[in-house]
């Protein structure tokens, strides 16, 4: 097994483990623990992006997700100060039905992947997702969606300011 393959298995296992600990941590049901494991999941995913030669996206993943989004999450968790999570009981029927449906979904997804044919370029992939290559595509072919996304961010920002104002006239 080559070092890259070993890194893939290590990072994939860590990603799935940390992802599981986000949704169902047996030791703690506090949202803070979930957020911390989500940060670990995101960092492992950035490692997988590096293995796929998507270097710019790996950097953006760390900066935007692990940096900005998770800080926002933690800030809101600390602001709300939730304490009543632990004394709530799970609905047993709901848990059973949810587990069964998710297991079915996982089976369908994995089976469809394993039964599919390999991509034509899959033998010797040569794509490099460096900043300059991605930037060239982004500012030539995808310049209109790029501008639209900036508008989406502006609208989201204005919406958040309006939502968090105390008294709207």
């Amino acid at each position, binding site marked *: 097994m080559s070092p890259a*393959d070993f890194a893939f298995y290590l990072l*994939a296992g860590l*990603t*799935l483990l940390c*992802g*599981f600990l986000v*949704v*169902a941590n047996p030791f703690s*049901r506090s*949202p803070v623990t979930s*957020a911390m494991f*989500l940060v670990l*999941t995101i960092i492992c*995913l950035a490692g*997988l992006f590096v293995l*796929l030669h*998507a270097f710019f*996206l790996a950097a*953006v993943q760390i900066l935007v*997700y692990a940096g900005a*989004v998770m800080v*926002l*999450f933690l800030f*809101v*968790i600390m*602001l*709300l100060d*939730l304490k009543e*999570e632990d004394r*709530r009981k*799970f609905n047993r029927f*709901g*848990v059973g039905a*949810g587990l069964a*449906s*998710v297991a079915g*979904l*996982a089976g369908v*997804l*994995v089976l469809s*992947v*394993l039964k*599919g044919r*390999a*991509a034509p*370029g*899959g033998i010797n992939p*040569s*794509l490099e*997702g460096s900043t300059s290559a*991605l930037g060239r*595509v*982004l500012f030539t072919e995808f310049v209109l*969606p790029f501008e639209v*996304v900036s508008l*989406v961010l502006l609208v*989201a*920002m204005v919406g958040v300011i309006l*939502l*968090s104002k105390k008294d709207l006239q």
Partner: protein
Amino acid sequence: MKVGLEHYLVVSGLLFCLGVLGVILRRNLLVLYMSLELMLNAANLALVAFSRFNDHLNGQVMVFFIITVAAAEVAVGLALIVALYRKRQSAHVEDLASLKL
């Protein structure tokens, strides 16, 4: 065994299922949002893998847009949660069931 596209897709599918599991099982709105993030990240991983193994950069551009929209969604969603918490003093889905029939 050499790592190929299907390995990444299996990891992405399982991560997506973990996100669905979180949305179904957890009752805390904040953890629900984190599960949504897990699902978006699973889709990102699949797109980057497709991009790499098809020798095309469009998948990575799509991931860039997904990250941007996810950031906007988190900002608006967390503002909504804070506004709801101010009114109801709770961030549990059972306590926010006023739209239920």
